[in-house]
């Protein structure tokens, strides 16, 4: 890749506010877990990491249910880092309120807000906010349609079936740039790629298992669909989980128990069996867990960026009950060593 191309590539850190543990293995409170994320984001900003993305959950194992509130706190203590949600579950939210909250964040942060809209992989928010799971498709389809109209920052007249209609409604605050940075988070459903292309919105792929290469045709689909709709095909981003430590062994030893707890707890509600160490290692070596030393993780990220041609890589960090100190150190290694090394690897001539 050329220097110019490499300079365009953005690196991010994503968190759902997983609950870390202290040096005695004691779980943080939700409040402490949120403050930990703020601390990590402040460090990330100092290290020049491009984006912090915080995803919304409504369950005990994740502390963040209101990403933009945490992002606003981060805004006050940082200078450059982009403040993203990852994702905002639009289906069970109100597009008008989402716009208001993020345009407010955009004001607070001098234009650093970014919304990543998605359907989410959890559905606790549906009963919580009074939505029917059977409306899963319709809710997202209608609300993204409304949201894209709101993005024009002009009065909106709109009618759907799942929300009160709007009649020439104007929504505030307006952004200074006139454009609230908005993306769609996609988990691999082909129709979601087509929908994002339909609205001319950029896509971030959540690649949380298996080989990243299998998404190559999905990116092609996005581009082809955009062409068909006459919309702009934006650069695509990806996010995948990982963890970095001084050596491969150390990284695996820290990440494995936390990953297992996380995976098995979710598996229990979804009906899959506990993860084995072999499965974990296979995912680390061949799949989508970016776990290891600086060199291992940098190599893996560079490989994925090249294979998919993405212009953004976000590392979902701190999955499961991980020591807070190890998380902070990971942020340091990612910003100081992994990202520069990835850029170096991308600059190398491919054979």
């Amino acid at each position, binding site marked *: 890749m050329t220097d110019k191309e490499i300079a365009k590539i953005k690196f991010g850190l994503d968190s759902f506010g997983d609950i870390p543990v202290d040096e005695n293995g004691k779980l943080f409170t939700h409040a402490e877990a949120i403050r930990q994320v703020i601390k990590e984001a402040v460090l990330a900003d100092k290290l020049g990491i491009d984006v912090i993305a915080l995803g919304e959950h409504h369950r005990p194992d994740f502390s963040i249910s209101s990403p933009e509130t945490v992002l606003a706190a981060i805004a006050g203590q940082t200078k450059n880092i982009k403040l993203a949600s990852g994702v905002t579950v639009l289906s069970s939210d109100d597009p008008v309120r989402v716009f208001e909250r993020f345009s407010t964040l955009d004001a607070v942060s001098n234009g650093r807000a970014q919304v990543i809209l998605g359907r989410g992989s959890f559905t606790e928010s549906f009963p919580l906010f009074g939505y029917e*799971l059977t409306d899963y498709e319709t809710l997202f389809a209608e609300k993204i349609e409304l949201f894209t109209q709101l993005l024009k920052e002009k009065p909106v007249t709109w009618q759907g079936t799942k929300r009160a209609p709007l009649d020439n409604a104007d929504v505030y605050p307006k952004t200074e740039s006139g454009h609230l940075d908005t993306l769609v988070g996609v988990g691999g459903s082909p129709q979601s790629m*087509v929908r994002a292309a339909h609205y001319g919105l950029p896509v971030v792929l959540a690649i949380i298992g298996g080989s990243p290469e299998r998404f190559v045709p999905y990116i092609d689909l996005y581009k082809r669909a955009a062409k068909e709709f006459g919309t702009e095909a934006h650069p695509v981003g990806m996010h995948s989980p990982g963890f970095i430590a001084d050596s491969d062994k150390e990284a695996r030893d820290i990440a494995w128990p936390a990953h297992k707890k996380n995976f098995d707890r979710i598996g229990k509600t*979804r*009906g*899959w*069996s506990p993860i084995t160490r072999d499965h974990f290692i296979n995912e680390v070596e061949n*799949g989508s867990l970016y776990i290891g030393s600086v060199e291992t993780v940098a190599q893996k990220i560079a490989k994925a960026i090249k294979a998919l041609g993405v212009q953004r890589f976000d590392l979902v960090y701190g999955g499961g009950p991980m020591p807070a100190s190890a998380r902070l150190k990971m942020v340091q290694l990612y910003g100081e060593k992994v990202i520069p090394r990835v850029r170096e690897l991308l600059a190398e001539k491919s054979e």
Partner: protein
Amino acid sequence: MNIKTIGIIGAGKVGIVLAQLALKAGYQVFIAGSASADKIALTVSVLAPGAIALTSKEVAERSDVIILAIPLGKYQQLPKDELDGKLVIDAMNYWWEIDGDRPDLTNPGVSSSEVVQQYLSQSRVVKAFNHIGYHDLHDESRPEGASNRKAIAIAGDSAEDIREVTQIVNNLGFDPVFIGKLSEGIKLQPGGQVFGAHVDAPQLRQMIKNFAIIK
């Protein structure tokens, strides 16, 4: 019967991967999504080039065997009449986050494929491809005899149908493991040890032997 055409009802993550594997194995592939054929035509032409997008009724009519890959909760939307007399492979699972609370699909004594069979009373339902995740399905497909080839369990009532599905599983890149009648398919469902498993045939047989509901 010499199976040449495979129909897939469902053009989501699982349906698309199955279409890719079936094409690679040399089958003629028809595929349907939940909406009209033209809505998925672009998706299919890019992700599974060679497959033909049709309506679910047309897929059912024109295919030798039909794989079901829609959310299980929507099984009553399947084209029952067109599936009459057909061999149908049920790759669906109950997923409460998509399907919602469905006591009809979660009776602990009845496999969900039996519920599907009851609805498709004139079809021959065999359960397969349900217990392996879609990305493992994509990444782990290997030619017969390859080392570390993964296994896929099959449950069904007719010896002839099992033979056909065994051949398909093998052609799509996995070691077929017959586990018993359709009712035994409950061992492959969410909540059981096999669900989510991508293991080789001896390991899969062992898991079936040791079957116990985790919870």
